[in-house]
């Protein structure tokens, strides 16, 4: 009789009389004398056996049905019901794209309730892991496991980071019938994708505000999770389901001294780029610049100049003076400050004496800071990138983007942080741009999204 075994993220199919029943991806493995597929093909293998009415023993699947469904009922919003229906219609595989703050997580809760299988939620950061942990625990009233950030506790409902999923899926890949990929635009890419392939879960749900990736690899989501089954835009939901918001771009002039230093460093950098014939309109130019820069003392000086002019533009003293002014104006509000890098985040924290969250912040302190922010003990929190995604700070109504990349995704996500509806909240996002610097262009690029028109 055919026997299915899960081994290190793959599915071993022993004693197959007719290999034609196996999916195309199956290979005969000489090392172990059996057929092998990525664990992901489990559902397909089983369907092949069912179709031919063949008997098999299943030693692979180790997931269970959940004893109970949702412990709390909350009437879903119409678009949440629609999203769930669209996903179910596609046999429980697919991506749901909803703007941040619209309640993507609740769609996952409804899906878990509908499927009732052991479920693994994969999230990009420890903050999000913590948040899913709280949400699953309260929604299903049962113990929730956590893998990642030093924890290793596996339960029928478990939350894991993408990093740990990549590392641990060879042990955990057969223990869940349903996987939710939160912020699923992280999944495509050599390593994280492997995590999805090494898991045999037949049911898969991807959640994201912005599934598209600049590198075009979002097409892989279809193979790893399923097609986009439902999509709604931020402008479609603002007002009714999201807070009303305004965005303001503030151009901050540099002082003469700052301007001089900026132009000096930028001059060195540009001269080098020109001397090397590098054109930034071409693909791979940045890579080319880094390679050339590493080859000579002059090149290294150019790289340093690039870093300095960037630092000048992103954390110029005049910019920080303006932050002081905004903090003062919004001293009774809840303000999130975003910076491009950790150094600036710490600089801001030290200077304005406000808590800061980066990847280096201990978990307990993160919780303390977010709780303090929610309660009002803290009026502002500084962060670089870790709060870009998903983390729930419903009370925040002001965002100050001190510096950032040209990424549209990052900017949409930062805006999303202040959009969670709470009463009649009016949200405002400030974007500080150093006048007549490369930032002006960066700012234009990141605002190329309907949310900013």
């Amino acid at each position, binding site marked *: 009789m055919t026997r299915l075994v899960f*081994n*290190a*993220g*793959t599915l071993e199919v022993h004693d197959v009389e007719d290999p034609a029943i196996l999916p195309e*991806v199956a*290979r005969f*493995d*000489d*090392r*172990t*004398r*059996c057929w*092998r*597929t*990525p664990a992901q093909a489990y559902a397909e293998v089983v369907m092949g056996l069912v179709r031919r009415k063949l008997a098999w023993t299943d030693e692979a699947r180790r997931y269970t049905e959940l004893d109970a469904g949702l412990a709390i009922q909350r009437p879903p919003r119409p678009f949440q019901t629609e999203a769930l229906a669209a996903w179910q219609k596609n046999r429980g595989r697919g991506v749901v794209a909803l703007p941040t703050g619209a309640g993507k997580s609740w769609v996952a809760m409804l899906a878990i309730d509908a499927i009732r299988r052991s479920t693994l939620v994969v999230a990009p950061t420890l903050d999000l892991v913590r948040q899913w942990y709280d949400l699953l625990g309260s929604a299903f009233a049962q113990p929730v496991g956590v893998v990642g950030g030093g924890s290793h506790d596996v339960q029928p409902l478990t939350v894991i980071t993408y990093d740990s999923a*990549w590392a641990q899926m*060879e042990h955990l890949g057969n223990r869940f019938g349903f996987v939710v990929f939160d912020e699923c635009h992280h999944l495509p890419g*050599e*390593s994280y994708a*492997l995590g999805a*392939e*090494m898991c045999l879960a037949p049911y898969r749900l991807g959640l994201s505000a912005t599934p598209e990736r600049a590198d075009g690899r979002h097409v892989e989501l279809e193979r790893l999770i399923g097609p986009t089954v439902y999509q709604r835009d931020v402008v479609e939901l603002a007002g009714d389901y999201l807070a009303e918001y305004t965005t303001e771009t503030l151009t901050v002039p540099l002082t003469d001294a700052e301007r001089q230093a900026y132009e000096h460093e930028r001059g060195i950098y540009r001269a080098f780029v020109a001397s090397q014939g590098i054109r930034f309109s071409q693909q791979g130019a940045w*890579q080319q610049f880094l390679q050339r820069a*590493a*080859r*000579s*003392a002059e090149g*290294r000086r150019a790289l340093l100049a690039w870093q300095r002019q960037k630092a000048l533009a992103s954390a110029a003293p005049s910019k920080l003076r303006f932050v*002081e002014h905004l*903090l*003062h104006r919004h*001293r*009774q509000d809840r303000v999130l400050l975003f910076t491009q890098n950790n150094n600036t985040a*710490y600089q801001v924290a*030290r*200077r*304005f*004496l*406000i*808590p800061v969250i980066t990847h*280096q912040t*201990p978990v*307990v*302190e993160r919780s*303390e800071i977010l709780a*303090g922010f929610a309660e009002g*003990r*803290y*009026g*502002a929190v500084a962060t670089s990138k870790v709060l870009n995604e998903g983390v729930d700070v419903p009370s925040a109504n002001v965002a100050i983007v001190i510096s950032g990349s040209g990424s549209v995704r990052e900017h949409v996500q930062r805006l999303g942080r202040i959009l969670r509806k709470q009463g009649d909240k009016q949200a405002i996002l400030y974007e500080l741009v150093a006048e007549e610097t490369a930032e002006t262009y960066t700012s234009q690029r990141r605002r190329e999204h309907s949310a900013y028109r």
Partner: protein
Amino acid sequence: MLTADLVRWKRTKDVVEVRPIPAAARPRLLEAAEGLLQAAANSVGESREVFKAACGDVPVSHADQRVFAGLQKLVTDRCTFEMDVGQPPVALRAEVFTRATAARRALDHLQAFDRGAVIADAAAALGLEVKALEGALFADLKDAHLLVEFEATTPEALLALYEREQERAALLLAVRVVVDIEEEDAAIWRNLFRSLKFHRLLYTIEARDGGYRVTLDGPQSLFSATRKYGLRLAMMLEPIRACARWALEADLLFGKPPERVRFLLKGERDGGPGAELPLPDDVADLVQRFGALETDWRVRRSTRLLALPGVGLCVPDLVFSHPDGTRAYLEVLGFWSRDAVWKRVDLVRAGLRENVLFAVTERLRVSEAALEDDLPGQLYVYKGVMSARRVLDRLEGFRPKAQASLSDLRTRPRG
């Protein structure tokens, strides 16, 4: 450990090598290594940031940047960093930031935020000097950690370590490793296979001229070239290096975008395959006692691996041969785990053809009856030390039965 970006690569078409440190650069790099080691020694008691700055101050020619970065990594690996134990920074921050929020909220729209006053108030409340509070506020950040211990070495040793570690770091990019090994020592082989098992790698093994070819990768390798096993393959280099003579060819995913290239490496233990390692004491004693018996059986060190693809393998210590052509192997499992014994039992039941005696101490609480008499693999359970006489008795059992007892012969299972 080095990372792949700190390796000096040399690429010729689809083959990459790691380059040793060029002779001309050696004096310069010895000086730089000396500088780095000095920087670490002088930074004991200082922060990581200070240590990094001290490393940055060591003069280095731009041609040596990569080796220098590698040396710096190896020196940093020899440092132990710890957080300064004082007031817990998390609690200090909570105090200061809570006060700052309150102070800011209390301002009217014409008043300005007074950072100095907030810090001074907080310091007074915490019983600290202002300067001490400023210093301790973020003392838990990685760059603020103190270098508490540094394991010194010489510049020469550091350069040698870099060259050796380069080879291992190259394997971080490996998707598959094929290695030809000449080795006659069972313990070295066993260590190699134990490491393979520990790192959960899969292998195939085939006999080659004078040795074996072992191909290493992981289950997933069948479907995609993945560097997921790179670290584990790199960790295999040490047990491979322990072999008498070896030559490996690794497939690396190299560069951006990753291209498949070959990486070649070979080596020899001191003395090469000719220089045999001594047998373990218990095995050597058995050989000596066996030699004293009056028997036609001859014993020597085994150089074979007995493998059954898809099931497993065993590495016999000795091979016994009789003039009638009978040959039997002995693998001493001694005090290993019961699990190891059951693996051998499975191996025999799955059709291992050779005559093998597995010697196990009674402390493992297994019965010789676990393998029936008519199977080619047998268990020999001993108490204390192995008895040459008992081994001989068991070897006799492997010889074709005398004509008289032909009727006793039962059919053996198909191999």
